[in-house]
């Protein structure tokens, strides 16, 4: 399996980056949905929805790429996670569908606008929770035999995954609220400024809970963090430092940095999870190398990706450039 170049390691990097990009990109627009019912009025809701409208369906294409890419490079992850999270995956998909159609129909509705508000909120929240539960289930591990999931339908639903689910809801809400700060002004922005510190606090509480709970649940994680690789502690330390920085930036009513800071929080958290779990793709039994597809298949797709992904990024960038004039700076997009 190990040639001159470790294809599996390259694919860990590619898929890891892809999943991380998806989480960051879809994170803030799911977050806007989570915050929807708490917005001061319908005009603010229009603004918030318009601010994420140009990007959300592009993000969903990355989710499909994530699914297909996992099947191509790490089929074991695809074929254990999806059966194990069967009910959760249904909730995730139903959530994404309801929020997707809410985007499209809310602006066209008049009498039933409030229904689409709930559809957007409910769909976004359920989808976020399900994604958090996936992370929790990954940390928790899967009952497998002979490369197959053999556990029950609700094994994934534990107090721990409930907590990681709620944690991601809080985290996405933080991304959503700091995005709203960046993209709006006036009373919508004032409301977001008021809400942001509370959400940041909630995220920190969840961060602390997960950080304490995970090593207690899992000896391997405990050993990893208590080992002599002391530089690992840079990541949680950075997390706390950035949280403090976001607090002060919020108090100074900075517009862009709270959002960037929140993205860094997510990045640190993400790296922390990977450090804890490395090198396991499907814990406790299978590493990324066990989960990998045939090197020939990995190579066949890698060669195509090397040519195609730059082209995709190129024409995506071109369309953003084409539409550059439409974004009203700081004010989001016009309502109807």
């Amino acid at each position, binding site marked *: 399996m190990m040639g001159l170049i470790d294809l599996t390691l390259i694919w860990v990097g590619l898929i890891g980056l892809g999943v991380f990009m998806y989480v960051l990109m879809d994170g803030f627009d799911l977050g806007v949905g989570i915050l929807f019912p708490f917005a001061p009025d319908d005009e603010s809701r229009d603004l918030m929805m*318009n601010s994420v*409208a*140009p*990007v959300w*369906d*592009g993000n969903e*294409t990355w*989710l*499909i790429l994530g*699914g*297909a*890419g996992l*099947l*191509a490079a790490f*089929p*074991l992850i*695809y*074929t*254990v*996670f*999806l*059966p*194990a999270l*069967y*009910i959760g*995956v*249904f909730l995730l*998909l139903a959530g*994404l*569908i*309801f929020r*997707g*159609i809410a985007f*499209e*129909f809310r602006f*066209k*509705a*008049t*009498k*039933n606008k409030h229904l689409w508000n709930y559809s957007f909120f409910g769909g976004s929240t359920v989808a976020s929770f399900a994604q958090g539960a996936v992370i929790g289930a990954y940390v928790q591990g899967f009952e497998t035999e002979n490369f*197959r*999931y053999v*556990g029950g*339908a609700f094994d994934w639903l534990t107090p721990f995954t409930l907590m990681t689910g709620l944690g991601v809801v809080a985290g996405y809400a933080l991304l959503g609220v700091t995005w709203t700060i960046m993209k709006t002004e006036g009373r919508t922005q004032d409301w977001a400024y008021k809400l942001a510190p509370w959400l940041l606090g909630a995220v920190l509480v969840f961060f602390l809970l997960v950080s304490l709970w995970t090593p207690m649940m899992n000896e391997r994680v405990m050993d990893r963090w208590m080992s002599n690789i002391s530089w690992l502690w840079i990541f949680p330390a950075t997390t706390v430092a950035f949280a403090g920085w976001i607090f002060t930036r919020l108090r100074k009513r900075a517009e862009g940095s709270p959002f960037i800071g929140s993205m860094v929080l997510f990045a640190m958290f993400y790296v922390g999870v990977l450090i804890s779990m490395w090198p396991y793709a499907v814990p406790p039994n299978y590493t990324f190398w066990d989960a990998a*597809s*045939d090197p*020939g*298949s990995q190579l*066949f*797709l890698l060669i195509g*990706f090397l040519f*195609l992904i730059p082209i*995709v990024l190129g*024409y*995506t960038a071109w*369309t953003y450039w*084409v*539409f550059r*004039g*439409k974004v009203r700076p700081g004010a989001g997009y016009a309502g109807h």
Partner: protein
Amino acid sequence: MDFDPVLISRIQFAFVVSFHAIFPVFTIGLASYVAVLEGLYYRTDNPLYLRLSKFWTKVFAVVFGMGVVSGIVMAFQFGTNWSNFAYSASNFLGPVLSYEVVTAFFLEATFLGVLLFGRDKVPRGLHLFSACMVAIGTFISSFWILSANSWMHTPAGVEMVDGMVQMTSWTQAIFNSSFPYRFAHMALASFITGGFVVAGVSALYLLRGNHVETSKKALKMCVIMLAVVTPMQLLIGHEHGLNTFENQPVKVAAMEGAWETKSAAPLILFAIPDAANETNHFEIKIPYLASIVLTHSADGVVPGLLEVPADERPPVGIVFWSFRIMVGLGLIFIAISLLSAYQLYRGHLYDSRLLLRAYTWLIPAPFVAVLTGWFVTEVGRQPWMIQGLMRLDEAVTPSVTGWMALVTLIGYFAVYAVVFSAGVFYLRKVVEGGPDPIESDSDSEGSNARPKRPWSAVSNQLDEAPSAAGS
């Protein structure tokens, strides 16, 4: 009560894939039509083409959006309900599906934005280019997904090693033997679907005396195209059938309702197949015709279902009847298309009210033909997941129980009922509006607001009367 997870998973997959399939089959044809309209407008500057293009782009945007949301579900069905299949076939299936995403999905999504909202933002040539990219994207997408599907019918370029598919030749696997036929058959089906919908809506306007000039133009384009394509489809379908006869004779036996292997086999027009007694009731047949069609010789041998044990036969009734519905509709399409072409030649197409009415009735027909066609090929492959290599009961997710599959099946029913009724409701509004709205430049608003959202190209308001549209 115990439910069979394999059966419910099959029903679930059949439901979500059938629901999904009706959208792309329409958008593939429609994307090409829009590209042609844009090309004609570019060359002739005739505003009729522009109006038609803008109108059908609106319809395209709504249907494409429904295809996207239902398509996301498909990307995960293989893992949730058919994980053993997904795992075994991942070395082939994974890269092929990933290539579909990077070569087609991004192309369609990105250039659709320019097509919908970029008319005033990019030079005319680039706008036409975007329309072509969307159309090409839909074909690239069909290329990959039909390659994967065809490979399940006629697997090639692989060997099974310890239950895992290992690649021996990518070219042989991607261009497996049934793929060219299936691709051509599906491409023509898309043109026919798009053609009959556009023709049907145009005929509706002509009957009402609305949008007369644009509708005449659209109907004429469709009639000429359909008169060429529908007979072609009969030939391609026949060739596809011969390929199936060679590779999956049991499927053809089910299509023909043939139980016993016969030389000089008759073509059965009507029958009630009885799987329990391995016979047909109430047969109406034409002597020798099945042998002539399949072997090109009156005494050619047509193998029957009894050649294989009962547990290797597909459900005969579904395959037999779906095939007849598909072929029957196909023959109606040919008759209507040729008759219309003749009327067009005589100059009587637009005042033949019965013909126009027939077109309005036929709007749902191509969708029925496409779905029944897929029933034939997919149900006809049963009990195989990958023909000859993996059976359905080996392919299902081992941990899925009957009630899990049932609960999610009911869930998908409920979700899609909402999506479908909202979408149809909205499409009706768009069609009520027609290609010649009072303010025809309706997408300038969209271009200021939400560049990358397909459906926002349409500015009608949902629950208001058409006359009160716009806020």
